[in-house]
């Protein structure tokens, strides 16, 4: 039992001997003097900006600078050429959905369809929260309708505020609408002024 503890003591003493493995004092003085000299050297060198370093780099490699400038000019010419070819749609920027606000109202006018599919048209029960209008008359909540022709009227103000109830924007039934379906399909918005 005493052997390991004695070995530990010997090891500790052996390790403590390493404390005297110190360099001569003048060697340590050189460390501090070199540290200060390196700090002074770092401070003497002016801090180069990114632009100056880029200029130095390009001055060092003029071929690379010419190739960069040629590529930039080519991109500029290509962009100018594409600008004349690409034209915006005819109604670009003239129409658009009004900004959503609490005063915006959407009026749906339900018109019975005169086709055979009308006989098989699905019925819609409007939810109580739906703010729908048929021909200027509010549709009662919970009422059952066989079909609703999706004529969408959108106005910036409340529909009731319009003197004649005439729609400001109205679009006809889109081709993608299938009244026979039990679930109304998504109606693409196409507005006509």
């Amino acid at each position: 039992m005493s052997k390991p503890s004695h070995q530990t003591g010997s090891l500790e003493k052996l390790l403590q001997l390493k404390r005297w493995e110190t360099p001569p004092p003048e060697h340590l003085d050189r460390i501090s003097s070199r540290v200060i000299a390196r700090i002074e050297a770092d401070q003497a060198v002016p801090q180069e900006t990114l632009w100056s370093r880029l200029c130095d780099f390009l001055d060092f490699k003029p071929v690379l600078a010419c190739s960069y400038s040629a590529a930039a000019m080519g991109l500029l010419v290509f962009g100018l050429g594409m600008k004349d070819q690409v034209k915006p749609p005819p109604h670009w920027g003239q129409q658009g959905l009004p900004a959503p606000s609490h005063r915006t109202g959407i009026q749906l006018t339900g018109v019975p369809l005169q086709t055979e599919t009308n006989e098989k048209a699905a019925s819609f029960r409007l939810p109580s929260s739906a703010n729908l209008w048929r021909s200027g008359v509010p549709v009662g909540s919970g009422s059952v309708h066989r079909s609703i022709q999706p004529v969408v009227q959108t106005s910036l103000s409340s529909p009731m505020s319009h003197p004649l109830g005439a729609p400001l924007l109205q679009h006809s039934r889109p081709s993608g609408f299938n009244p026979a379906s039990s679930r109304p399909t998504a109606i693409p918005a196409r507005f006509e002024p």
Partner: protein
Amino acid sequence: MPAATVTAPSTTEAHESATERPERTLIAASREGDLSAFDELVRRYQSRIYATIYHMTSNREDADDLAQETFLKAFKALKSFKGDSSFYTWVYRIAINKTINFLKQRRRKSAQLSLNEMDLSGEGQGHILEFISEHTPRRDVRLHELQAKLNEAMQKLSEVHRLVVTLHDIQGMPHEEIGKIMDCNTGTVRSRLFYARQQLQGHLSDYLKQ
């Protein structure tokens, strides 16, 4: 046999005497670019920093370079020093991180001895002679050979275990201080120290037999 109470030559280095400027004053002046104040800080801690790096690397040139890099980084990062820990602990962390990164990059096994360059004057010589005459298992073993084996065994330890042995057994640092430097609790320090000593005893078993 009572354990020899050995005091490292550099342990009193950090103590501020009445004539020395306080550490806070030196730090504040160094932040303002006063190089003489930073030079005083470097001189105050360079011996211990150098010794720690040297015992970790067992290479004098590497210890030189790493010590300089440590103080250079400390000067550049001095503005980020918030004073949560002592400046001494903060610089020690920088030195240890740099040393461990260096050792991971370059796994050197060249245990360059410096016993012939030891300061054998004064107190150190007496302890060495006492150790040789009383505890050397084989009388004919040379001190250089024993120290070579010790350095070789040290290099076989992992970086963290070598660091714990260096800070505690060689430099006499308390567990709490080592825990602050290594950012771990004292229990971890003690367990690492126990494991490292076991490893060293295994490597030096032929030389530590009675």
